[in-house]
């Protein structure tokens, strides 16, 4: 029981520390790297929750592919210690509003009675929980429509990217 608690504290601590670094660091490339640190420690938390499939996908897709493309763009632009883009009043106000909404939402979820019951009695994990087969079954039955709508959204994004890249400027 001690080792999982220690691991949780470690991953959670790294995640929080890296998240703060993402916000406060001046160099965009360092920020991107700290974001990779956040993603990796969150995937560690997934493993502690018996969701090793999700953890592997998190590293493979987010940390291994999407963040590399982020870095690719940041390095090409070679921004070093740029001034923050959104400092004007309206943008700042929107950011604060958004943060408050997310915070209230999370607080509401944590304090809901359903959650309290879950924390009191540590639930037993059903066999096969978090396995690729179990996730696939749920994804293609219960969540079929959201899943297909997401894939159409992604297709639209791909077509949009191709159209933008092919457009002749000037």
């Amino acid at each position, binding site marked *: 029981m001690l080792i999982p608690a220690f691991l949780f504290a470690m991953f959670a601590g790294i995640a929080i520390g890296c998240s703060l670094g993402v916000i406060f660091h001046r*160099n965009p*490339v360092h920020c991107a790297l700290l974001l990779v640190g956040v993603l990796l420690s969150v995937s560690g938390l997934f493993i502690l929750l018996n969701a*090793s499939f999700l953890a*592997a996908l998190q*590293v493979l897709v987010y*940390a291994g592919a999407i963040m*590399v493309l982020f*870095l*690719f763009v940041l*390095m090409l632009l070679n921004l070093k210690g740029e001034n923050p883009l959104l400092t004007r009043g309206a943008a700042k106000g929107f950011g604060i509003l958004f943060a408050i909404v997310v915070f209230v939402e999370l607080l509401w979820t944590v304090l809901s009675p359903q959650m309290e019951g879950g924390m009191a009695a540590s639930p037993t994990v059903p066999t096969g929980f978090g396995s690729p087969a179990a996730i696939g079954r749920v994804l293609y039955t219960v969540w079929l429509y959201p899943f297909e709508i997401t894939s159409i959204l992604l297709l639209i994004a791909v077509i949009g990217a191709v159209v933008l890249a092919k457009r002749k400027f000037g």
Partner: protein
Amino acid sequence: MDTAFLIESAIKVHIVLGFVLLVVPYIVWMERKVLGHMQDRIGPERVGPFGLLQTIADGIKLFMKEDLVPAQADKVVFIIAPGITVVTALIAATVIPWGDTVELFGRTVALHVADVNVALLFVLATTSMGVYGIVLGGWASNSKYSLLGGLRSSAQMISYELAQGISLVSVVLLAGTLSLAEIGRQQAHLWYVVPQFFGFLIYVISGVAETNRAPFDLPEAETELVAGFHTEYSSMKWAFYFLGEYANMMVVAGVAITVFLGGWQGPVLPPVVWFLVKLTAFLFFFIWLRATFPRLRYDQLMAFGWKVLLPAAILNLVVTAVVVALW
């Protein structure tokens, strides 16, 4: 988590990591010898019998070299980057099975360090992290050639990762599991290279591209980029990139053997020996490729990855899926 399990894991970690690190000098020696003979030369022969100690001497020389960090470099990232390459390769090596379970001292011991039920995804995930070592090294050096090398490698590795992953998915469809040990066990009678020959071809081609080896060694391309991402690296930091490349070769070869070439299975010889024989043969194949093919041009490389290899991999996956569904 009982104490015996912890001790067993610790021993296995030491064996696997020690093996990978100790065997790299001999792979380098093999590469130089084989390349030499393929080019009608002799290769290293002065230090030790058959030049066997040549790479050890080179290693000692690298330890003694001055360690330079460019003045305008991003120091922290510059120092971390080579480590990332080595560490990700070593982590990936822990899930590759060397054999089936054996009985040792009254315990059932599996011949791989970590028993992960999504081992195949685990390998892909850790090797996809390996690209950071090269990209960051190229960026942190603050040199044009290094940056170009780093950018090339990020584009190349992401492109070929897709084809690699999809070619492995075809085998997963046949095997019905993501566990490397289980996939290896299923090939007692038929290696997956027989039903999945095209998958194997696609995996090997993208595997060579993933490890940045000739004919896909564009991130370093000494004739145009002056060694690319590691131009500014010297001493042991440079040696770490070298070490990482060879450790990555072993991981790619280990996965290919386990998934397509029957893993540790084979007649007469014991399982671990079979695994090592196949590993050596595969590494020889890597060296053979390097001696045979000239380097591709960069646009050819990207066109080949996206317009030939990826569609071929998807087609292979669709055909496999249809066959599995109808059977």
